[in-house]
């Protein structure tokens, strides 16, 4: 099996497209870092303190407004509380232009990483068919099951490599350009202002983003294996990845969408506590995703193992 993965890895990196994907990712990470640096505003103590003071004043003014709705009242109250907390504790707000800020940016581009992994994921099987190399690959003393497994593992390895590159690069670039952060992020839990743990948030964003990452790759791999056409597979997977929420909104009227993987694949819903359709438990989401993951994998393997190769 190791030999087979080695083979797939070698083939992957001999394609120009793979390097293009890496270059795109690097350009985005470096580009955003550099732009942030160029447009960075010098933050000094007095500035942010004045700002916070202004926010309190503003909130107070707004709260004077008659017939203010409940939601707005809560918002201004929280704004006031947080600003007061910063002034009392000398806690400057977090800015994008910091190492932590840049790392958080890294976590936020998991959608891009997913998108970039879906491309080779959709073509790793189908391209063997369109190139006709599949017949050279399958007339070897290696079962089709092993061949397909090695391809699936290779694609996930590729995806994880991109994630690793992103984590390392955003950290290094963030540190070089901005240095470690001085500010803190605040959140209000049960009416009490608290400092958030930025590192933990970044870590959780990465972990929860793996839902979309895994499902999109499995879906692309499945379509690529069944249709043996890279273009159809890439187009369909991109469509589902980008338009997922829209598709769910459209289907919502007709079918119970809580049993569709697209409703759950964005696991960061559970992190933000803002749900796309209605509140569900993490367990429910993982269960739905698990069932679909098994279906995608099973269908990929069944078609690949049974099919007559005519390419």
């Amino acid at each position: 099996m190791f030999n087979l993965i080695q083979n797939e890895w070698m083939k992957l990196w001999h394609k120009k497209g793979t390097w293009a994907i890496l270059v795109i990712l690097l350009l985005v990470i470096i580009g955003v870092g550099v732009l942030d640096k160029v447009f960075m505003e010098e933050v000094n103590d007095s500035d942010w303190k004045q700002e916070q003071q202004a926010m309190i004043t503003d909130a107070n003014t707004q709260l004077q407004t008659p017939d203010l709705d409940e939601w707005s009242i809560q918002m201004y109250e929280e704004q006031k509380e947080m600003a007061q907390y910063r002034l009392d504790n000398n806690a400057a707000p977090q800015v994008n232009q910091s190492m932590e800020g840049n790392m958080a940016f890294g976590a936020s581009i998991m959608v891009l990483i997913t998108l970039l992994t879906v491309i080779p994921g959709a073509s790793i099987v189908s391209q063997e068919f369109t190139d006709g190399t599949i017949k050279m690959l399958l007339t070897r003393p290696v079962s089709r099951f092993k061949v397909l497994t090695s391809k699936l593992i290779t694609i996930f390895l590729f995806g994880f490599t991109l994630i690793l590159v992103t984590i390392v690069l955003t950290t290094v670039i963030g540190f070089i350009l901005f240095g470690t952060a001085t500010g803190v992020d605040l959140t209000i839990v049960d009416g009490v202002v608290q400092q958030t743990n930025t590192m933990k948030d970044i870590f959780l964003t990465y972990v929860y983003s793996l839902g979309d990452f895994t499902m999109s790759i499995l879906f692309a791999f499945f379509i690529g294996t069944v249709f043996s056409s890279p273009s159809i597979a890439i187009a369909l997977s991109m469509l589902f990845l980008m338009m997922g929420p829209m598709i769910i909104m459209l289907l919502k009227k007709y079918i119970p969408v809580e049993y569709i993987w697209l409703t759950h694949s964005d696991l960061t819903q559970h992190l933000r506590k803002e749900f796309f359709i209605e509140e569900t438990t993490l367990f429910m989401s993982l269960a739905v995703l698990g069932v679909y993951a098994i279906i995608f994998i099973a269908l990929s393997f069944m078609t690949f193992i049974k099919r007559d190769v005519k390419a």
Partner: protein
Amino acid sequence: MSKPIVELKNVTKIIKGKTLIDNLSLELFPGQITGFLGPNGAGKTTTVRLMTGLMRLTSGTITIEGASIADDYEKAISNVGVIVENPEMYKYMSGYKNLIHFSRMHKDVSKERIDEVVKQVGLTKRINEKVSTYSLGMRQRLGLAQALLHDPKFLILDEPTNGLDPAGIREFRTYLRKIAVENNVSIFVSSHLLSEIELMCDRVAVIQNGKLIDERMIQSDEKARMKLKAEPFELVENYLSSNDYVFTTQEGVFLLELKEDKVPDLINELVAQQVQIFAVSAVHETLEEQFLQMTGGGQIV
């Protein structure tokens, strides 16, 4: 004849109600080169795909060295080297990387073995260049190299000389003959070039509409025929018919069934009867003529 290395028994393939291969049985032997001929769409490539496990059998069995291709695929295919139609290689990699790729899928193919095969097929100079820069002939050579990597006992070649120049074809033929004789490899060659098959093969199997319609050895001397030009015509004709020779006449020339070792006797007797002999020559029935016989004059390729 030794034991067959490959056995096809009642092989049938039906796709969407259409019978592509119909009850085909065939045995292939070590050290023998078997040609596989048939018109386009007769089922040559389908048969090759069934033998290599690319397609599944509808019914029947195929065994290679005793291992069933359907039930014991990895064992059965480990003895087989294949080129199915054009050898499609990974164009974005060098020839050498392609061979490394395939060698990793077999057991015990050393770097030395790769170099050896590269040398054998005459690609040493260009092996580190990308396959996309190769000519069709070079790809064909690389295709042969990947098929030979693991020293297979059974070699399946689908249109192997396609794209080779005449010198290349000749070299290729000699090479196949060599590995068949020296390594006792059984070779199965499908081709549409009758003359190619005739020069290359010991035996030929003919397929038409998915059915095996004939198989025979090539250049068997059992039914040698001689062409005789002699005068006077009537005298010769009378002599031949009274002595029970099987013959026909055609434009003053006799065509008779006669083995080579009987030729001097006939000449002596005719000379004794004052017959003037202008020419005696052996008639080689070409494969093409044999085919026209087999298929009743229908189109072969």
